[in-house]
């Protein structure tokens, strides 16, 4: 085996790829060759490092130098200075990773990583996801070996049950129980499925695991196949994730080649294989019965449960369905034992949770924290707070099924039960931060718009009910809200929750209910005062010129497309609100910031 004196890790996740990391890799290859270093320095394209905000990211070991927002033009300097002369290029280092006197902090000391505990993401940003040998070198497939050669299926299920692992897709059902139900179901053929149809807007946890560590999911599914008695697995993945699809395809081919998928795995009489199935852009397919209909090649419409998938699933056979992140935890639970896993987290929620941190936050990216970490720690310590010194208003979790968590609940420890208690939900892990500039009625409208568009149309409460709710919200944000509209929304929400067919329909009203619960005053300001306190809802805005700041230059009047601004030079101008079309051009052009939205 070759020995390399340094490793250059370049992030190949979707975030960094979008900001050009592939060109950086090409450039590194060129430059390493130019300096004749290709046998001394190993270039690795890894999965996501998590800190997408400062991508593309390059980390150079052994020093652990964390270069951020690297451009192709920076590569020759990194090679010539750092790799040839051993001088770290300080100007490119991520600012928070620089200790006093220009020394580098280790990654565990950087604010973004300090409070994190990476279990599901343990290999993301560490190994090359397209190379099975690297996964194996990090104890990959060891858990599968142990399961197949030393454990009975019952022992495997008991281990998962004892670990307290709950489904990471959102609902939090105990994973071990699901496995047991599927094992006990009667059937000549059984299936193991992986739900990788990550449809919540603003959520990319599962994608990062598939892109950064695809073998962990394959290994876990194979373990599950052994435990429940299945020989065929399906991964249902969004077609919108081309990199994840590509790496899964490579991973499956490599695992087959190594005999880790296919017939007689590890020389036992256990056989198992996995196939990929691509979604085609339907949010509802994240619901388990809809997902299975889609695998079968039908419209992805949910059906009533029971029968549950454990009894009657894909092709009417007993089926185990877990989420990507749930699977990513399995091999470690087998290797380290259930007690180890139980020691992390809170009383009823064990282990860690991955969150996709986005919105108005400094460190956008992927974070994994022990259950019970507070929202404040995530937003302010890991996330680095809110840009521009703005005030935290709310965090949205659970996507279109979840709700908003306002500032007074910042110190709530995050686990399944506490989030449900305060009117949101864990969801799959999207965590969008909103500041004072975001209007909560507008956000509720945004989610309802999403739900209406994605409703499969099978059951009337969701198909018609959510549309009626959207109409009410449209009315409110356009300044036509009436007394009683809030109550109508609440009544509709209650009825939809009680009568919709599937989980997505039943939870669709949550964003509205939780914003009414915590921000009723904003709804009332829209309805009674025809005013949007955050200054977002166009129909309710007025542009006005602050007389004290206006120098009378006339630039605004010259730029106004509808001649709504008038005045005398060197004296304050005024805007005729009746003529104004609220295009905002005047505000953009004013050199004295004398025009404000009210």
């Amino acid at each position, binding site marked *: 085996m070759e020995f390399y004196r340094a490793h250059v890790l370049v992030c190949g996740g979707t975030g960094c790829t979008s*900001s050009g990391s592939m060109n950086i890799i090409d450039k590194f290859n060129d430059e390493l060759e130019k300096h004749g270093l290709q046998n001394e320095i190993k270039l690795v394209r890894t999965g996501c490092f998590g800190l997408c905000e400062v991508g593309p990211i390059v980390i150079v070991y052994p020093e652990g130098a964390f270069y951020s927002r690297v451009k192709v033009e920076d590569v020759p300097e990194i090679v010539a200075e750092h790799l040839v002369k051993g001088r770290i290029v300080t100007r490119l280092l991520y600012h928070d990773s620089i200790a006093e006197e220009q020394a580098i902090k280790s990654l565990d000391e950087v604010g973004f990583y300090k409070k994190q505990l990476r279990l599901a993401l343990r290999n993301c940003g560490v190994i090359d996801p397209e190379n099975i040998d690297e996964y194996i070198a990090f104890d990959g497939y060891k858990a599968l070996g142990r399961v197949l050669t030393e454990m009975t299926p019952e022992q495997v299920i008991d281990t998962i049950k004892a670990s307290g692992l709950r489904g990471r897709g959102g609902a939090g059902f105990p994973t071990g129980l699901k496995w047991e139900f599927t094992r006990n179901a009667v059937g000549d053929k059984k299936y193991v499925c992986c739900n990788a149809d990550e449809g919540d*807007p603003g959520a*990319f946890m599962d994608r990062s695991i598939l892109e950064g560590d695809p073998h962990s999911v394959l290994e876990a599914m194979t373990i599950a196949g052994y435990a429940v008695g299945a020989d065929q697995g399906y991964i249902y993945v969004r077609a*919108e994730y081309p990199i994840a699809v590509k790496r899964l395809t490579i991973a499956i081919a490599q695992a087959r080649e190594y005999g880790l998928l296919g017939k007689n795995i590890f020389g036992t009489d256990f056989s198992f294989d996995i196939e990929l199935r691509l979604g*085609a852009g339907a949010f509802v397919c994240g619901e388990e019965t809809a997902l299975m209909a889609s695998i079968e090649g039908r*419209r992805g419409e949910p059906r009533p449960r029971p029968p549950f998938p454990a009894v009657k699933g894909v*092709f009417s056979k007993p089926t185990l369905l877990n989420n990507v992140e749930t699977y990513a935890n399995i091999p470690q639970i087998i290797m380290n034992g259930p007690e180890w896993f139980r020691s992390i987290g809170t009383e009823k929620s064990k282990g860690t949770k991955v969150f996709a941190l986005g*919105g108005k936050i400094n460190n956008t990216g992927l974070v994994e924290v022990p259950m019970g970490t507070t929202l404040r720690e995530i937003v302010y310590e890991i996330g680095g707070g809110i840009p521009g010194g703005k005030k935290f208003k709310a965090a949205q979790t659970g996507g279109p099924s979840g709700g908003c968590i306002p500032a007074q609940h910042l110190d709530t420890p995050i686990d399944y039960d506490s989030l449900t208690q305060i009117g949101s939900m864990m969801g799959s892990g999207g965590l969008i931060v*909103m500041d004072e500039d975001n209007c909560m009625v507008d956000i509720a409208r945004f989610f309802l718009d999403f739900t209406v568009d994605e409703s499969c149309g099978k059951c009337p409460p969701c198909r018609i009910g959510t549309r009626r709710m959207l109409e009410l919200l449209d009315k409110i944000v356009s300044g036509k809200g009436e007394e009683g509209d809030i109550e109508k929304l609440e009544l509709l929400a209650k009825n939809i929750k009680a009568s919709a067919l599937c989980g997505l329909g039943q939870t669709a009203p949550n964003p509205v209910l939780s914003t009414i619960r915590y921000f009723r005053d904003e709804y009332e300001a829209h309805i009674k005062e025809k005013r949007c306190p955050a200054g977002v809802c166009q129909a309710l805005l007025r542009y006005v010129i602050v007389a004290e700041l206006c120098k009378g230059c006339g630039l605004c009047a010259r730029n106004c497309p509808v001649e709504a601004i008038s005045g005398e030079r060197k004296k304050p101008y005024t805007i005729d609100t009746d003529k104004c079309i609220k295009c905002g051009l005047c505000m953009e052009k004013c050199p004295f910031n004398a025009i404000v939205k009210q």
Partner: protein
Amino acid sequence: MATSVLAQDTQKFAELQMVIEEYKGQEGPLMPILHKAQEIYGYLPLEVQNYIAEQLGIPITDIYGVATFYSQFTLKPKGKYKIGICMGTACYVKGAQKVLDKLQEVLNIKVGDSTDDGKFTLEATRCLGACGLAPVMVINDQVYGRLTPNDIEGIIAKYKDE
């Protein structure tokens, strides 16, 4: 009668036949076949759906039902440049709507439509997962991040001239 899509291009037709042959025997072959058929033709013309129906022995109504259920399948040809503006939550709270408004203005089309010259198709997409770059837009495979409405005209102009 309009010219037959299938007869027009024998190479594409041969590819389609191969795809159907490959998946025919498998369980649940329809979704993968539709994906590949769309890759071959760029969209799913009724004639192609009919042919798949015949070959698989599935009623055309079922195939049409599936093709119209999923938003990624399209029955209309798309423009040369597919513009997708991300409307995920992270992009939305960072002003994606304003960027979209600007795109509609510059291209003079509504979301979901294509320009008359067949050059651009404008789509509002679901979360692309590049939340670190919000708001984000994709033109074919090229990603544009941290957009403001002011960036749009310049970006579109680049493609118009090509």
